């Protein structure tokens, strides 16, 4: 089999932790988009869900920071944050260690990886799973791309990781779903929290949905940092996902800035089955 589902979504902690402070009309439309994504994910009947995230110092710190790390645990748990603060109860998720090992081994033909048999999820993975696998019954393989503590892996390598992941998935009989989760332009955890550079955000999403590799990997971190905020460095997760779905375009199911969530809230799904090829 191969990838049976690929999409991206936001993961900001305010999405669940500050839900009561958002405009309920916009918030509920966003939640409905997550639910649409959940239904599409379930309809794809995946055996496992690979979550390419950008964690925030839950497991990895500057004492030993991997550029990319893939989980190989029997199970995972989270959130690492206070349950009340995040608005998500502590949950245990099944892993898929044998498949993880095989995927890691295969991806390492092209990209050096770290792996971890122990992993505590923070909001970067908990928020998407809260909406997409609410029963916590789908085996998870977490992937972290360091987007928080520079130096960061180059964007072209993120795309290449996605390609390698796709190749590894193609070699497996399991039905594998993959999501990328991160922010585009945003300044989370700063006094500018809630600010978004809409022009940058729209331009990036257009390139992402068209899956134009050259345009995506042409971004410069210094420019992203200056124009789109330190949170904009998380485009690495979107770019990896685009690499995994190379040759396919995407469809935007939801976008709206929700300032109290500190992010432009996004749900998009790649047209893997529709045969819509990127230029």
């Amino acid at each position, binding site marked *: 089999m191969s990838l049976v589902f690929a999409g991206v979504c936001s993961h900001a902690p305010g999405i669940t932790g500050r839900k009561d402070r958002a405009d309920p009309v916009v918030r509920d439309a966003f939640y409905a988009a997550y639910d649409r994504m959940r239904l599409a994910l379930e309809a794809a009947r995946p055996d496992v869900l690979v979550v390419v995230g950008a964690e925030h110092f839950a497991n990895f710190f500057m004492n030993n920071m991997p550029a990319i790390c893939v989980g190989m645990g029997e199970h995972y748990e989270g959130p690492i*944050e*206070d349950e009340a603060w995040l608005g998500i109860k502590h949950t245990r998720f099944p892993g898929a260690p044998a498949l993880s090992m095989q995927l890691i081994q295969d991806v390492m033909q092209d990209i050096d990886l770290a792996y971890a048999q122990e992993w*505590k999820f923070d909001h970067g993975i908990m928020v998407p799973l809260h909406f997409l696998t609410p029963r916590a019954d789908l085996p998870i393989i977490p992937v972290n791309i360091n987007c*928080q503590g520079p130096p960061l892996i180059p964007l072209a390598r993120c795309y290449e990781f996605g390609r390698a992941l796709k190749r590894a998935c193609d070699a497996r009989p399991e039905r594998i779903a993959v999501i990328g989760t991160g922010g585009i332009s945003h300044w989370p*955890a*700063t*006094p*500018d929290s809630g600010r978004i550079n809409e022009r940058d955000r729209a331009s990036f999403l257009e390139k992402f949905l068209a899956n134009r590799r050259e345009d995506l990997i042409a971004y410069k971190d210094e420019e992203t940092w200056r124009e789109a905020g*330190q949170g904009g460095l998380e485009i690495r997760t979107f770019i990896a996902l685009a690499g995994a779905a190379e040759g396919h375009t995407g469809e935007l199911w939801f976008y709206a800035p929700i300032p109290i969530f500190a992010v432009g809230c996004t749900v998009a799904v790649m047209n893997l089955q529709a045969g819509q090829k990127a230029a």
Partner: protein
Amino acid sequence: MSLYNVQKLMFQLNRDPAVRRRFDEEFESLLADYDLTEEEQIALRDPDIGLLYVMGVNGQILMHYAALRGFEWNAYMEAMREGERKYGPVRTGLYTRAAGR
């Protein structure tokens, strides 16, 4: 290097229940285990969230320390703004740009 130690303390506090227990029960002894400047110790002890922000603590670590010390979201935002007013722009790290907006 010292900022690294401030962030390391917060990182370990965030993920290790044993460090959290020491934080609750023997705060000074916990601080002593990290190589911190006097200013950093004061900022952690007070806590002065605005000063920690200006020092350059990564916001993704600081926001949890602020929550742990009882700062709800709006108070946390205001503490960072107050830090900028009182101590100037963020001194170093990924968050320097935010102060120069």
